């Protein structure tokens, strides 16, 4: 009888704990970078700060996948597309900020356009020199894409594996498209060689720390927002759709609208992650659309434990940390490890690390209650 309650309380408590840890780490790491002198043992290098920022972007991306997969049972293998579209939006802004400091010194056209002998800026690049407009588009484009795709797919009740394959095809098609030079997004090489953001030098420590903190803030905000949604009746409807969509329909819920709504919300989170990711890693290219990237995100969530928000974050951080270490020591082995992780998690750890913890904790507390 107390099981569900204790589980709810647990996730609530751990969520708060998570926010606290995130806050503490962010502030401490930032201070350790800016205040503590470089030769000190406690100094955190800018490289580490950027790496942490990158991890937090991945965590946000994982959160977006968890919201849709863990809570609503929609396995999207194409969330990398929304991430990359957001990233391209930011990249286009940063590209315009370069101005005449590019290799060719053309104040109007980015280097790759000069290289391709383009005479003028394509119409869809207009306005991207304005930060506000660029950010609006970086959210609007993935949002509209998610809306259109979701509307088409959910209205005609494409579910399960079919939907997963469709999302994969979506990101695959976008990848092919962005690889084309004629698209006007830099083709193969993508957008890179960024100089500054809102007038701040991207290489400066202060900018790096600020971006890291912004990422932490967005992650925290997204976490809280998602927790609020999942705690509301809307969240319960979403769970109902996951567990018995047709029953939910017979209760009078237009499930396709709920799914579209959640899909768009999730796509927006992914887009935000992409926006924050690009200035920190300094490049965006069509490789981000590759189906492998999207499906890797799914495994982060699976490792951490889907259906728990903090689990997705933990999974993203752990797997990416492992990836960084692994590829440094044994680059050949990483894909073996990743592949094995897929198999291991699905076979033996279906609820991920978070589920494993919760279960141990819950069973202990039940035993205590019985005693």
């Amino acid at each position, binding site marked *: *009888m107390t099981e*569900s309650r204790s589980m709810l309380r647990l996730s609530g408590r751990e969520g708060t704990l998570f926010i606290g840890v995130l806050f503490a780490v962010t502030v401490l790491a930032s201070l350790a970078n800016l205040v503590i002198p470089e030769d000190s043992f406690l100094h955190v290098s800018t490289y580490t700060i950027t790496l942490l920022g990158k991890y937090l972007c991945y965590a946000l991306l994982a959160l977006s996948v968890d919201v849709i997969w863990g809570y609503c049972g929609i396995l999207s293998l194409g969330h990398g597309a929304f991430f990359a579209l957001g990233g391209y939006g930011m990249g286009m802004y940063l590209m315009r900020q370069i101005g005449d400091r590019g290799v060719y010194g053309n104040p109007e056209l980015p280097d790759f356009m000069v290289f391709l002998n383009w005479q003028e800026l394509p119409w869809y690049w207009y306005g991207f020199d304005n930060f506000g407009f660029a950010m609006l588009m970086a959210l609007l484009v993935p949002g509209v894409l998610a809306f259109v795709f979701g509307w088409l797919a959910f209205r005609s009740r494409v579910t399960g594996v079919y939907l997963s394959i469709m999302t994969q095809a979506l990101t695959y098609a976008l990848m092919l498209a962005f690889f084309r030079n004629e698209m006007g997004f830099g083709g193969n090489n993508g957008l890179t060689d960024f100089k500054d953001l809102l007038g701040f030098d991207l290489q400066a420590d202060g900018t790096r720390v600020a971006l890291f903190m912004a990422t932490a803030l967005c992650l925290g905000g997204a976490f809280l927002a998602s927790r609020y949604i999942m705690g*509301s009746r809307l969240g319960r409807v979403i769970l109902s759709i996951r*567990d018995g969509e047709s029953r939910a329909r*017979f209760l*009078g819920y237009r499930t396709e609208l709920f799914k579209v709504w959640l899909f768009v919300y999730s796509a927006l989170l992914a887009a935000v992650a992409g926006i924050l990711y690009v200035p920190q890693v300094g490049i965006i290219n069509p490789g981000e659309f590759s189906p492998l990237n999207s499906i890797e995100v799914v495994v982060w969530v699976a490792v951490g434990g889907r259906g728990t928000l903090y689990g997705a974050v933990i999974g993203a951080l752990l797997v990416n940390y492992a990836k960084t270490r692994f590829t440094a020591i044994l680059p050949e082995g990483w894909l073996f490890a990743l592949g094995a992780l897929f198999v291991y998690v699905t076979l033996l750890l279906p609820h991920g690390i978070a589920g494993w913890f919760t279960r141990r904790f819950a069973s202990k507390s039940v035993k205590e209650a019985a005693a």
Partner: protein
Amino acid sequence: MSWPAPLEEMRHRDRVFPHLRPKAKVDVSKNVLLYVEGVSVSFDGFKALNNLNLYINEGELRCLIGANGAGKTTMMDVITGKTPCDEGTVYFGQSIDLLKRSEPEIAQLGIGRKFQKPTVFEAQSVFANLELALKASKGIWYSLRASLSGPQRDRIDEILALINLSEAREQLAGSLSHGQKQWLEIGMLLVSDPRLLFLDEPVAGMTAQETERTAELLNTLAGDHTVVVVEHDMEFVRSIARTVTVLHQGSVLAEGTMDEVQNHPEVIEVYLGSDE
């Protein structure tokens, strides 16, 4: 019999809270709530429904019987919007064409349905299951900000008491016994206060005692609600039914009181068997 009163009270609550009233007025001036006329459905050449005609009166308790494959479930699927039909018309009252509406719209009109297999949301508590079924706006933004009002909470409590699950309110629905799940699903129907209820084998898997309680519940519901029950358990049907409709190969074979139906020669031949 202590529970007609709360039900009565619930009916009045409808008038207290304007948003709880059904949006589309159902015109039942002819005293017929549901018209099913000339409906045919075929799957790959197999005629699941064959020119089916059925009229359900307002406030009636109707039992549908028929062998497996007679088309009972398919008929419910058509009425509740799950399966499109090849031809025919289905009207709710005089003016609402159900064939043009989707499942959620039909549900919001006040047509509730219990499935053959009990389907409750197993990962959520009994209370949450009832809350989801509550008669309220089913919109996204409303759901995001919805909180239970006092009367709504009371109402859920009443239903919990009615279906004997007050003790289990915080338990996960997945941990209930089969019979309890059946009850919970009935409770979910009741809490949404439907105009018309379809119950597909409501007493399957219930103990004799539970079955008896279900029969009592259905008997009291009739009059205020219109109830259509599909059941194989003849004893149960006899205990609740006023009018029985026999389906055979996708169309109505006979209709009447239990005794009339049982003595109908064709029914004896195709369904009840000669030993009855």
